């Protein structure tokens, strides 16, 4: 792996990143130019309209989408200086992701979905079981461990997605519209859970277009047309 850069105190540092896509003969900039930092234990919300570049930004932060320019430093490590396979290891170790619309594996039970990130680790079956059940208890779904995702409500599926994202105890949680498909009451419950996880030390970066969700964050970054407007 490339050497870590010195004299950086932030957990995440976004340096002059940009992301362009080719649309036929035209080049479209999803992210034009962004700079910001996230410290360890922060709860950041990234807010913007559809097409503002916030989901692309989240993918870039998660090591999923190579930026056209700039650097993303996580724990002083330039993650796009890593090979694709090293970046996969980085994601496994550092990042928990909550996808929009939950994205649970339909043929795996709740417990198996939560264990999924541990399938590529050397953790024993017994330990995996303990960790998965413990995290399910934390999100209040221990009793539904053997159900399939389609037997759960939207809010419950979101909780399973959160449990899956944090089961490996990553330092960073990326959440893409975690309340986007939930009613307000369920959304409030999910936000309270995220807040709780943040209090326990988890750094959370949440993309949302819902201003109410931003109230739970320490800081909101407004994104429009691929630019950070305010921090």
């Amino acid at each position, binding site marked *: 792996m490339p050497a870590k850069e010195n004299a950086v105190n932030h957990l995440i540092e976004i340096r002059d990143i940009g992301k362009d896509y080719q649309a036929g003969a035209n080049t479209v900039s999803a992210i034009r130019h962004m700079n910001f930092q996230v410290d360890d234990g922060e709860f950041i919300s990234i807010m913007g309209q559809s097409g503002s570049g916030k989901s692309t930004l989240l*993918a870039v932060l*998660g090591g*999923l*989408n*190579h930026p056209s320019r700039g650097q993303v430093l996580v724990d002083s490590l330039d993650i796009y200086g890593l090979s*694709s*396979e090293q970046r*996969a*290891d*980085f*994601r*496994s*170790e550092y*990042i928990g*992701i909550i*996808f*929009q*619309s939950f*994205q649970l*594996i*339909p*043929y*795996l039970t709740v417990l*198996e979905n939560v*264990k*999924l*990130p*541990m*399938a*590529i680790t050397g953790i024993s*079956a017994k330990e*995996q079981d303990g960790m998965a059940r413990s995290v399910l208890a934390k999100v209040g779904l221990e009793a539904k461990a053997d159900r399939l995702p389609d037997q759960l409500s939207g809010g419950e599926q979101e909780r399973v997605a959160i449990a*899956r994202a944090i089961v490996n105890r990553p330092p960073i949680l990326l959440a893409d519209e975690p309340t986007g498909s939930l009613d307000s009451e369920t959304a409030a419950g999910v936000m309270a859970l995220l807040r709780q996880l943040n209090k326990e030390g988890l750094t959370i970066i949440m993309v949302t277009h819902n201003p109410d969700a931003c109230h739970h964050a320490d800081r909101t970054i407004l994104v429009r047309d691929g630019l950070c407007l305010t921090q």
Partner: protein
Amino acid sequence: MKLYHISYNNLKRRKGKVIFLVLGLVLGIATIVTLLSITESMTRDIEDRLDRFGANIVMVPKSENLALSYGGITVGGVNYAAQEFAEKDLVGIREIENRENLGAVAPKVLGAAQVMGRQVLLMGVDFAVELPLKTWWHLDGTAPAGSDELIVGAEAAATLDLALGNTVPLGGRTFTVAAILQPTGAAEDGLIIGDLHAMQEVLGKQGIVSLVEIAAFCRDCPITELVLQIAEKFPAAKVTALKQAVMAKMQSVELFKAFSYGIAGLVIFIGALLVFVTMMGAVNERTREIGIFRAIGFRRGHVMQIILLEAMVVGFLGGFLGFVIGNLIAWSVLPLVIPKGTFAGVNLSLGALAILLSISLSLLASLYPARKGSSLDPSEALRAL
């Protein structure tokens, strides 16, 4: 949770597709197993026939002067007697290296004698050995039960005006005609056939054998090897393999075998194509899933493992079921292909090969889809989310 849990659960979920994939492989493997089993049974059948239907090696005295007419020999020549074998030496035939490949060993004595005023060729045989070998002999009457009974060839019977139950004076002894040999179109038609030792006595050739017919079939070694081994034991003998009969039959089997391989290859190719197309479709359908796997930290190798493990399970099932079904088909179809033929039996080595072939095919056909799936850029895959 291990990667194989994901493969197993996915196979369980996509039962329809799995059944389709397995069926494709079963079709290919069952075809191969059926054809090979039938070919094997045909080969066995030929072996059995050769064992039952006569000799394929003839041992005669070495001679440059004698012309041959029966089993490679013509009698009546002036130098003939000097070239024959001692009967007691024939045990040496049973001492060759490949003795377990020897079936019947049928010694014969031949000689001319005056019978009822005519010169007739006499042949002495061991009826207990000879008759099972000459299954094409059809007798009117009964097989000789004692040393004073004869079989008379159809032509000889007509010439000498002999009928069943007639007596024939030979060398001071009286023999009874126990059977008339129906016309064979061969040298036997003109013969009078009697017990080996009785004919030796009649011809004055006690302990002498004119030629030996040997029934042998060597599955694992060429018949020429057997011939060489016998020739080494009997330097004064000319040992000849009647290869033509064996070769002609084996050639037919070989042709069928080649045809079987051709058909099997074609079916296997179609089966592999089926697996390839289905696997490609399955991988495309799983883009979203693969995106999730990659996003949560699965390496390309992990994704490949999941897909190839599924292919392996499908391949194993296809191979195993194909082998079982192929054998069942061969067993049920065989009576139609070889009347009175017997099924060669379940060949476990073929089973292992069939399963290995099926797994290899499934893996090969899935390799490209697996590589394609594992190489998906997580961000590309996640666009499908």
